[in-house]
């Protein structure tokens, strides 16, 4: 099950999705037993921004059909607080660290990448680009051009593997992935959450403090599989696949369409040890199946003239 990812040796292919497992809080709740049984082969931090953020006003959660919507709003201590307070504690985890960062300008992202690059505790950097471009209003991650220029600008600032986390809220995620690859990214990860909304049963207004939020969990599994397949077919970079993974079969599906690693998010809320369970289920599937999975990184092409998603 051991796997190499951008030169980093990992015990198995299952890691966490950014923002879905707080190892520091989990240690408060479960103690050091959590370290010995750490569920993931690498730990991805919650998104870090330059300045501290308190996040969105509550309510931040809505339970959807076989999924959930969140509008957490990236609460974090900010870069300085992360480096000083969080990173030393995270360094005590038994696995490599990936720091996820986001900035609203190229300059911000550059500062984040440079400072993280300076820290030996961090094995890789993940860019969260699911935030609006100040000019276009579109998410940077939805627009190949602005994503490309962002990655090109920060790529030289670090020798660490640079992972770009793609948003699913775009017409052609494979084109965005290709732009990331051309701009020098070392890997891509997807999917982030699907933009969604819920109404307050009482007031009738938006339920979430952030008004809209992101859908995750089982409900998005088949959308994630389609996007990971499309991206894996288009780019040669290693891909981290995620979206609704709850069992080894789901991880196996993502790996079979081309993912190198699989990340678990929402399922950890239902089962804090989901990562361990899924890695074990995946292992037995891989042993059962043709020793190693035969990976197919060619995009599924319809045989039909008009292929319409809807019918």
């Amino acid at each position, binding site marked *: 099950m051991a796997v190499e990812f951008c030169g980093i040796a990992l015990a198995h292919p299952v890691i966490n999705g950014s923002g879905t497992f707080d190892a520091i809080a989990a240690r408060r*709740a479960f103690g050091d037993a959590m370290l010995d049984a750490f569920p993931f082969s690498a730990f991805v931090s919650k998104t870090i921004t330059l300045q501290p953020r308190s996040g969105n006003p509550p309510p931040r959660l809505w339970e959807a059909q*076989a999924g959930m919507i969140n509008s957490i709003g990236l609460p974090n201590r900010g870069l300085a607080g992360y480096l000083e307070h969080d990173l030393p504690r995270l360094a005590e985890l038994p696995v490599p660290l990936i720091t996820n960062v986001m900035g609203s300008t190229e300059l911000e992202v550059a500062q984040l990448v440079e400072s993280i690059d300076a820290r030996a505790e961090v094995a890789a950097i993940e860019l969260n680009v699911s935030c609006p471009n100040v000019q276009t209003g579109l998410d940077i991650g939805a627009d190949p051009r602005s994503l490309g220029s962002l990655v090109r600008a920060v790529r030289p600032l670090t020798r660490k593997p640079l992972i770009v986390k793609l948003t699913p809220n775009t017409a052609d995620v494979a084109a965005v992935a290709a732009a990331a690859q051309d701009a020098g990214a070392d890997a891509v990860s997807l999917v982030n959450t699907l933009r969604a909304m819920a109404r307050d049963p009482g007031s009738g207004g938006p339920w979430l403090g952030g008004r809209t939020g992101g859908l995750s969990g089982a409900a998005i599994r088949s959308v994630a599989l389609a996007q990971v397949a499309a991206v894996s077919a288009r780019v040669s970079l290693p891909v981290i696949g995620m979206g609704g993974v709850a069992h080894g079969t789901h991880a196996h599906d993502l790996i079979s369409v081309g993912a190198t690693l699989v990340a678990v998010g929402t399922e950890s809320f*239902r089962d804090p040890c989901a990562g361990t369970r899924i890695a074990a289920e995946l292992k037995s599937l891989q042993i059962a199946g043709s020793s190693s999975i035969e990976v197919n990184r060619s995009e599924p092409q319809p045989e039909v003239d008009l292929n319409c998603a809807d019918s």
Partner: protein
Amino acid sequence: MRTLAPFGRRRVAVAGGEDAGAYRLLHVDDPAGPSPSPGQFYMLAAAEHWGAGADERPYLPRAFSYMADAGGRLGFMFEDVGPGTHRLAQLDAGDELWLLGPLGEGFSAPADGRRALLAGGGIGAPPLYALSAVLDDPHVRVDALLGFRDAHHARVAESLFEGTPVQLATDDGSVGHQGFVTELLARELDADDHAVVYACGPAPMLEAVRALCAERRVPAQLALEAGMACGFGACYGCVVALADGSYMRVCVDGPVVDADELAHVPAH
């Protein structure tokens, strides 16, 4: 007080369930689990058919304070208010649950000879009952003040709080004092305010307790509620704003919080 939870959810058996007035009592065998501290909670989900209820929910586990803890058997009390509690209310002896916990920060015992005033509203009773069971120091006076909608809801109080003097308040006056539990609390504090107030219940009631204790300068520990996804600090979903403008995560920083850390108790 915080008892650490074993890492990982446990599949446990329901020892029995009973209806008590408007509420459902669930007794769960958790031999592998530690003995929790009053005010702590567990995340529960039925092992079978968790989902496909109203609006294809529940999907996430649900948070419940434990009410009783005797030799590895946990007691919970809840009201059917939606798909999750509806499903849990169907469980009976032999059915199985996924259980994670004990979680969160519980109550701390009263210091320097203060009396303990337990103020509960509706489904706020369970953690207070758990607290009363451990406050067995003869030198500590304990009184429970419990508010309910009506006699039907108040019925559960009888089965609880043996050994602790209980005063009831109901909205409709069908049993006990007609009015708010905070009126009983004010009366008690008039009599003797060398006390610590422990409160759990609906937000408006907790806010009234907070305001009253702030005004009387009486220390109060509030057990808060918030919608939760994980229960162990992973999702940042369960936040409540503190007086200093920052947010606390109810599941790891709470659910019990000193009342003076809050400017007010928010509606959700």
